[in-house]
Every structure is written in structure tokens, then in C-alpha cells.
């Protein structure tokens, strides 16, 4: 505990009614900080028993007890198996259950006995008094058992079962609960039972909310009470519909309530998650369309052979397509579902919208993604196109919904035009494919700024109407600004982890809200400050350093891609002459930045060559949105398994991959195994033909994960050395899976 431990702190709340008045210090509203933990009370047999060897006396006593219990148990089983439900028999089971409340067959037996009694009743005349007597006896046995073991699942369920027969007094149950919950305010069985009783007794959410307030006043270090509060408030928000002002006032009160707990003892976790939940309520806004490929307003220059030509690449955007098709990617502010040909319409001369199939771009979120993909093609007979317009209208009809249930309602659109040059030359077959060398001397800083802004600034101007700036986001901005001020205040007097983390999150939430305010009210996001906070946290709380590194990476990527200028700083020109077969001379180099994960790639959808080497990357989730990517360097990172490369399976343009010097094969635990569709999960049907590979001497059972990742890729260059997994067997498999592989670990295979 920190220095405030043991003090009494006044909290500015009063206890009457559902709405918590803002100020008003009452003497009864004082919170006594006491250290709570399981250590105070120990109920469970298997926990918290000292290791010391028992004395001879103790041993003898224990042996005697064991012998008695053994007798009791075998007596009981005899009664159970012979269906004997006499008074004496029931007493035997009651005796057993008080010594050993976890004896589930004992509880089953008592249920059978009750049922036996009830069945017998219905034959003659129903005697509710004797029924009540029988049921009360059950409640008494349960109570005694619970006194012995407060955490016995069997005892609690037996009580529920008895209650469900009717005839019992709910008030008595509430009194009993009150007693138990005083003894152990965190017992989740008791809380669950409480929810069961309040449901039976139809106690209002408001009344129960007051109970949690009382419990928190009694001791704010009660996570169970905070939890129940979040459950009750969610119900109330749902029930009362979309009355904004009502929800707003509650949220404001709650922020103040939990802030007091956080500030009183910043080391106590009880309020941390509640605060985060409140913050999440603030930024639960409508999903937005953030960006797209092709970008709005651009002119896309398609070449149907592999040849790009030596002419100036710019100001037009080129895309090669042997298949006469090109991808369209929509990138939303959060994962959404419901993108299809009725929610998104495409107006294009050579295409019927009905034929469009949208696919979610996500390695592990089926039917739901931040980025969505479709392909448009143009007919074989068309050899020349000049400024053929394409219009994509997003959410013309409702149906696009974010994962947290908010609908996309504002129609947005992107427009671009399509050109196919008439002088496409015949592709020269059999040319040698040069190897991509990820060496510093091959890259030149990109200094020309003459490029078409539509390429480097794919943050197209979506037509977002003024209604986009809703009243609620104004209020959210104000509330978050207020919380930020409070947080800074706390941090000025104490250097605490939760304060810094909360401030970092508030600032990020603010940045999210800013994207909803058009025009921007001049509030600037201070990414430097957020990055600084995460740096501090790495030192302050080294146990969770990787958590802060991951968060830091996401903020850094946001900062790097903030504007055209900042992206340009990381852009390089590859090679000295233009390579004839690759349109990837323009390379984004995010190497050596201590990145540990990927995210916020909405402004990078146009990237074809990406260098992420010499980072700390464990997961490449997010890269799947970069549909144009053809060259990727992931060397010298911390990728631990082939499963971690799952997002690559969605990159159909990928030709060059460097995963050398990672940790593939060095770990016995694969942390990505269940996040992709592996055969251990029900989601995938195992249709692999293992025999096919046995013929070429490859035992797939050792490399089934490599098979899973690489079978859909069509690489021409792969670097994989420096991973523990590499073996001749694996190489054989890779060659078989990717016959097009021309360069392998620097060697030309032809």
C-alpha cells in the first residue's frame, strides 16, 4: 500500500438515490482504507494451509477424522445406491455435507429425496406446510455447509435449486446474503446468488446500484462491487434508450466517483478497469471511413503487363495487373461488419455492382474487419481507357455496424478515374529477375516533393457533412478535457503508474474524438507527450514493459503517418535504376524504431515496399490491409512462429519476403496458434493431403504450420536464414509449395 494507507478519506458522495450529487461531504460517507486480500479469510481446503509437519497428536486426530469421514462416505453411498430416503438416512447425508460440502453426490442425493417427498405429496393431498418444512431443512443444511466452506459450488447451487421450488422467503435470503457479504465482500458465489435473488424478487437496478454504492463506501477496494455497478449501469443505459443528456450526466457523476477512488489509493486496482470502461463509453462513436485505395480524387494508371515503362511514374498512380483487375480497399476507424454490395455501391461503366463481393481483411476476425477488400476488373476487349470514372458510395443503406454495435450512418463516397494506356508493350519473357537487396546503400532518402499529393496524401477529402460534428462529441471532448486536467493534477503531486497510463489513454481518446470534429477546433494531439508517458511507464513498471512497448508502437505509427511530411521522412528510393519488373522503388523504411506491433496503417494503403527490419515485432496483425505490398522486410525481429505470419496469406501481391533472423522454431509455445484457422479449431476443415508430400520426402507433421502459411503465397524471393526452424526438410517443402521461388537466402535457384 502507498503512503495513504490506513487513513480515512472523505469522498464527496452521498448515498441517497440513484444519481450521485456532486458535492456534499457527509460524515457517513467516509471510506476507511483497509488492505483486503484473500489472506484474511481462508475457506478453501486446498489453499493457504501451512506446510509444517503435524505433531503426533495432530496426526492421530487427523487419522481419526479421516476414518470417521470414510465410514460416513461409504454409509452414504450405500443409502444413495439403495434409494433410501428415511429421516435417519437424510441425517447421515447432512452430517457428511457439513464435513465435506464439496461432496456433490451428497447434494444430488438430497435433491432426489426432496423430489421423492414432493412426488409422494402430489399423490395424496398437497400439504404446503410440510413442503415448506422440508425445504427449510434443505436451506438449513446448506447454511451449515456454507459456514464450513463459503466457496462450495454444490452448496450454493443446492440453495438455488431449493429456492426455485418456491415456498421460500426472499427477505430471509437477502438477510443471509447481507451477513455473508459482510464477512467476505468479494465472494463471487454470493454476488451471483445476489443477482439470482434480485431477479426473483424483481428488485430494481436502481436499488441494486445503491447497494454497490454502499459497498464501495464501506470499502472502495471492492472490485466485485465496481463490476456489478458496470453491469447495472449498462442495463440502465440500454433500458433508457438513447437519452443522451441522461447518460451524459450519469457518466459525469461516475467519472467523479471513480476518480476519487483512484486518487485516494492509486495502487489499488479496484477502480482502474471501471475508469477505462467509462472512458470507452465516451469514444464509442459511429465508425468512420478513414481512407481507401485507390484514394479519392486520383487517377489510377493501370498496366496490364508486367512492364511499367521508363517514363515518369508520377503524377499518376500506377498499378500492374496481368489479371486485368485491381483491388479496392476501404479502411474504417474500427472493425465493422456488414460491408457488401447493398451497403457499398460501385458505379463503374464495365461492372455491375451486384457482382461485387467484399471480403473482410483480417487474419482472425471472421466477417468483421477494419479493412475491406474487393476487386474490380475490366473486360478483355478493352485495350484503352481514358479517365473512366469510378464512384464508390459507402453506406448508402444502413447495415454497416461496428463490433460494439454502433451503426455507420453517414454516406461517404470516393471517386477516382481509371486509365489504361493504349501503348502497352508485349512483355519480354524469360528476363532475369534481380534480387532485392535490403542494404542501406541501395536506398536513397526521398527528397522530391513534386509528387502528386493524391498519392502521398491518401487521406482523401471524404464528404463528411456538418452533422458529423454531433453534440455528443462536443460533450465528450469537454468531459475528456476535464479528466485530462484532473489527471495532470494528480501527476503533479504523485508519480504513479495508473495516473500516467490513464493520461496516455485520455490523450489517445482525445485524438480519436478529434477525427470526429470537422472542422477541427484547433485541439492538437500531443503524440510526443503520449510517447513520453509510455517511456516513463516502461521505467516505472518494468514488469509490464512489453505492454507499454506495444502501446508505444501504435502511438508511434500514428505519429509517423500523421501527415505527408512525416511519412516522407521515412520514404526512400530503392536502387539506382528503375527495375523493369517491380513497381516498388518507393520504399517506406520503418526500420530500427523499436516497433513491437503494427497498427494505424490507414494512411499506408498505397505502400508497395516496406522495410520493418531491426525492430521488436512479434505480431504483424494489421499488415493484411496493405494490399499493394509486394516487398516486405521483417528481418531481425521477434516473430516466434509461422502462425504469426498468417496476415501474409491475404497479401496476394507479395513477391519478396525477408524473415531472416527471427525466432521461428525457437519456442515450444506458439502464441498465434489459436488466432488463425489451424486444424485444432473447429473453424477449419482439415483438407490437407499429407501423402502428397511424403512422396518428396517431406514429413508434413513437423511443418504443417509452414505449409499452412506458404501454400497460398507466390514468392519469388525469400530469406529465412537465422531461424531455428530452418532445415533441409523445410527447404524442400518451401520449394515444392512455391515453384516460382527464384531467390532463396540469397542464392539463385535457376
Amino acid at each position, binding site marked *: 500500500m502507498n503512503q495513504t494507507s490506513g487513513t480515512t478519506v472523505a469522498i464527496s458522495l452521498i448515498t441517497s438515490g440513484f444519481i450521485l450529487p456532486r458535492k456534499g461531504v457527509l460524515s457517513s460517507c467516509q471510506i476507511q482504507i483497509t488492505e483486503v486480500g484473500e489472506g484474511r479469510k481462508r475457506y478453501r481446503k486446498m489453499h493457504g494451509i501451512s506446510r509444517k509437519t503435524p505433531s503426533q497428536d495432530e496426526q492421530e486426530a487427523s487419522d481419526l477424522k479421516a476414518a470417521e469421514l470414510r465410514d460416513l462416505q461409504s454409509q452414504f453411498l450405500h443409502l444413495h445406491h439403495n434409494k433410501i430416503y428415511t429421516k435417519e438416512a437424510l441425517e447421515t447425508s447432512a452430517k457428511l455435507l457439513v464435513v465435506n460440502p464439496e461432496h456433490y453426490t451428497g447434494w444430488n442425493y438430497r435433491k432426489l429425496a426432496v423430489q421423492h417427498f414432493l412426488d409422494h405429496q402430489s399423490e395424496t393431498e398437497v400439504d404446503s406446510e410440510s413442503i415448506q418444512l422440508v425445504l427449510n431443512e434443505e436451506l438449513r443444511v446448506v447454511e451449515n455447509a456454507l459456514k464450513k466452506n463459503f466457496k462450495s459450488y454444490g452448496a450454493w447451487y443446492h440453495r438455488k435449486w431449493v429456492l426455485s421450488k418456491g415456498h421460500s422467503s426472499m427477505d430471509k435470503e437477502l438477510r443471509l446474503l447481507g451477513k455473508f457479504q459482510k464477512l467476505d465482500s468479494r465472494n463471487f458465489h454470493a454476488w451471483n446468488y445476489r443477482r439470482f435473488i434480485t431477479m426473483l424478487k424483481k428488485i430494481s437496478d436502481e436499488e441494486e446500484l445503491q447497494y454497490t454504492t454502499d459497498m464501495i463506501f464501506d470499502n472502495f477496494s471492492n472490485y466485485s462491487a465496481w463490476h456489478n455497478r458496470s453491469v447495472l449501469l449498462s442495463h440502465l443505459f440500454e433500458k433508457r434508450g438513447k437519452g443522451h443528456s441522461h447518460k451524459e450526466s450519469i457518466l459525469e457523476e461516475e467519472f467523479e466517483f471513480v476518480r476519487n477512488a483512484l486518487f485516494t489509493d492509486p495502487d489499488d486496482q479496484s477502480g482502474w478497469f471501471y475508469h477505462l470502461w467509462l472512458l470507452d463509453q465516451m469514444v464509442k462513436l459511429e465508425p468512420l471511413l478513414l481512407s481507401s485505395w485507390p484514394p479519392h480524387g486520383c487517377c489510377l494508371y493501370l498496366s496490364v503487363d508486367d512492364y511499367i515503362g521508363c517514363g515518369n511514374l508520377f503524377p499518376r498512380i500506377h498499378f500492374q495487373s496481368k489479371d486485368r483487375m485491381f483491388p479496392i480497399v476501404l479502411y474504417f476507424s474500427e472493425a465493422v461488419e456488414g460491408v457488401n454490395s447493398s451497403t457499398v455501391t460501385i458505379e463503374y461503366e464495365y461492372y455491375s455492382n451486384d457482382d461485387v463481393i467484399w471480403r473482410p481483411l483480417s487474419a482472425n476476425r471472421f466477417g468483421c474487419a477494419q479493412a475491406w477488400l474487393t476487386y474490380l476488373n475490366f473486360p478483355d476487349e478493352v485495350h484503352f481507357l481514358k479517365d473512366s470514372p469510378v464512384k464508390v458510395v459507402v453506406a448508402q443503406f444502413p447495415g454497416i455496424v461496428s463490433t460494439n454495435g454502433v451503426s455507420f450512418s453517414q454516406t461517404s463516397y470516393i471517386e477516382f478515374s481509371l486509365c489504361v494506356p493504349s501503348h502497352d508493350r508485349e512483355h519480354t519473357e524469360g528476363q532475369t529477375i534481380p534480387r532485392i537487396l535490403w542494404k542501406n546503400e541501395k536506398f536513397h532518402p526521398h527528397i522530391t516533393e513534386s509528387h502528386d499529393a493524391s498519392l502521398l496524401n491518401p487521406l482523401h477529402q471524404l464528404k463528411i457533412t456538418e452533422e458529423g460534428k454531433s453534440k455528443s462529441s462536443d460533450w465528450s471532448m469537454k468531459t475528456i478535457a476535464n479528466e485530462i486536467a484532473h489527471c495532470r493534477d494528480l501527476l503533479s503531486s504523485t508519480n504513479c503508474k495508473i495516473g500516467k497510463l490513464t493520461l496516455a489513454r485520455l490523450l489517445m481518446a482525445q485524438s480519436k474524438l478529434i477525427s470526429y470534429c470537422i472542422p477541427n477546433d484547433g485541439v492538437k494531439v500531443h503524440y510526443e507527450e503520449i510517447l513520453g508517458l509510455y517511456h516513463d511507464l516502461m521505467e516505472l513498471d518494468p514488469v509490464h514493459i512489453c505492454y507499454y512497448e506495444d502501446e508505444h508502437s501504435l502511438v508511434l505509427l500514428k505519429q509517423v503517418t500523421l501527415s505527408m511530411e512525416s511519412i516522407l521522412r521515412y520514404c526512400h528510393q530503392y536502387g539506382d535504376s528503375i527495375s523493369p519488373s517491380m513497381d516498388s522503388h518507393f520504399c517506406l523504411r520503418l526500420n530500427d524504431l523499436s516497433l513491437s506491433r503494427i497498427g494505424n496503417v490507414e494512411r499506408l494503403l498505397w505502400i508497395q515496399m516496406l522495410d520493418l527490419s531491426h525492430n521488436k515485432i512479434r505480431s504483424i496483425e494489421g499488415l493484411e490491409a496493405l494490399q499493394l505490398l509486394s516487398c516486405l522486410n521483417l528481418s531481425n525481429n521477434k516473430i516466434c512462429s509461422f502462425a504469426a505470419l498468417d496476415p501474409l496469406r491475404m497479401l496476394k501481391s507479395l513477391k519478396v519476403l525477408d524473415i531472416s533472423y527471427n525466432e521461428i522454431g525457437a519456442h515450444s509455445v506458439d502464441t498465434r496458434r*489459436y488466432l488463425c484457422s489451424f486444424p485444432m479449431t473447429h473453424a477449419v476443415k482439415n483438407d490437407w493431403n499429407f501423402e502428397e508430400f511424403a512422396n518428396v520426402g517431406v514429413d508434413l507433421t513437423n511443418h504443417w504450420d509452414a505449409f499452412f502459411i506458404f501454400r497460398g503465397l507466390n514468392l519469388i524471393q525469400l530469406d529465412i536464414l537465422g531461424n531455428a526452424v530452418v532445415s533441409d526438410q523445410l527447404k524442400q517443402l518451401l520449394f515444392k509449395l512455391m515453384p516460382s521461388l527464384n531467390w532463396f537466402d540469397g542464392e539463385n535457384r535457376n
Partner: protein
Amino acid sequence: MGELKTEKHVEYILSVEKRKDDFVSVVMEHLRLNGAYWGLTTLDILGKLEAVDQDEVVSWVMQCQHKSGGFGGNIGHDPHLLYTLSAIQVLALFDKIEVLDIEKVSNYIAGLQNEDGSFSGDMWGEVDTRFSYIAICSLALLHQLDKINVEKAVKYILSCQNLDGGFGCTPGAESHAGQIFCCVGALAITGSLHHVDEDLLGWWLCERQVKSGGLNGRPEKLPDVCYSWWVLSSLIMIDRVHWIDKEKLVKFILDCQDKENGGISDRPDDAVDVFHTYFGVAGLSLLEYPGLKAIDPAYALPVDVINRIFLGN
């Protein structure tokens, strides 16, 4: 802190198996099948499964089965899902699933699914997401998931998801690391982890690590070796295990060993038991402690057993 006392732990587990007369053994008699799973899996991870008489164990396990197809915790005790999974797991360890009447066992399990997708633990109707996990895990091991309505089962589990990203035993119940393991495990097995907010849940889980390096099961609770399993396996399934300090946790588990008599306890210097010995050793396996067999975080069985079942080698 020293190192893992493998030999001592093997001796301890074998001795518990033989000791049936002390009070703790008698109190635990009703869940002996769980105990068998804990003890035998520990032996397997330690590379010493051959130390037990396989035929004797298999024959005893089969005597715990009822006409209904379900298994009781011991001979003569009522059938329940809790022990049915243990029975299947023990048989899987020995590669003896074929002794089961798969149709009968899987019908028993599938018959306990309720209209809302949830599962009862037995005929008496207690509902808990623990039972959802057990049903899904058991049926997957038997290749019989098609017997239940997986979509509804997943939907029910999601209805128990809380605002802190975790899961409780029924809708509205507080998040608890053990329950999170059950729900995340069930979602992993059914290929539905996309419903989990990995960052939110991951933060809650990684904050379970306390100063001593140990993990607790809920905020502001004491650490306990068993959470090494519940929390770690969940963090692994959602790829956030790097968010905790593994070295400190290894040290905490090793500090809970009884170095003289073998076995692992909940906290340093407490009395050891099979339950904590299993969770300690399994936790160390998840932490890639040298010399231990790898264990699968979703099925709680050694990876070679799982590969045998699902990849057929």
C-alpha cells in the same frame, strides 16, 4: 530459488496415488478422477508417465462411467461433466480413447446443452461457462463437435463477457481468471477468438501479476500458483503473454516447491497438493522452462497428444 525438483515431484505424485487413508485424500475421494488427470498430466510433462500402470488406470477410469455415458468422480459417485472431461483427457494421455463408446459419451455431453446454448453440469441443471468449456473441449477431443449447436454455445459464452474484457460463470458474473480460461479456451477451440478484445482482456490479465511475481485470479487478491495456469494459458491463446514478466513468475512457482518432499503449493511454505503441483508444472511448461514437455493452452494436454489427435501422427 533453485531449480525444478523433477525427481521429488514425481515421487510425490506417485506417493499421493498410493495414499488413500489420510484426511485430505478422503475429502477429495469424490473428485479422484480430476486428481488422476492432474497427477498423470504432471507426470507426462515431467517425462515420467511410464511410471504408472496404464492398464490399471484405464480400467479404473472405465469403472467410473455410468449407464448414461457420463463419468463420476470415483466409482459409485454420480456422473458429471467435470469428471467426464478428466476421463477423456486421461484416456487421451495414454492414447486409449478407442476404449470409449464415443457415441455414448458424446451423446451424454451433447444432451446437457440447453436451449440458450449454455451447458448444465449434470441432470440437476447447474449452468456455468466451466461446463461450456468442458463440453466443447471433450467433444473436440472426440471429433464430435458437430453434435452440439456450436454457434449457440459461443453466443452464450459471449453473453458472459464483461466490460473489463473478461468472463464470468453466468451472464453478469464477475470476471475471474479461471472462468476466463474456460471461455477463452472454448472460443479458441471453436475458432471464435475474434470475439475477444485481446488488448482489453490482455491488460486485465497481465495486471494479475503482483510484486512477488505470482499471479492472482482477480484484482486485489493474493497470488496463487494455480493462476499460473489460468492466466498464462489465456494470455497465450490471445497472444499477450509477453505482457507479463516470465522470469519473475518462474521464480515464484519454484519458490512454492517443497524441496524436500516434492509437490508444489499455492504460495511459498504452504502445504502442497496435486492440484497445485499440476498447475505449477504446467505453468512452467507454458513458460518454456527447460526439460519439460510443451502443453497445449486450450486443451490442457501435452502438445504431442493434441497433435496426435488433430494431425493424426
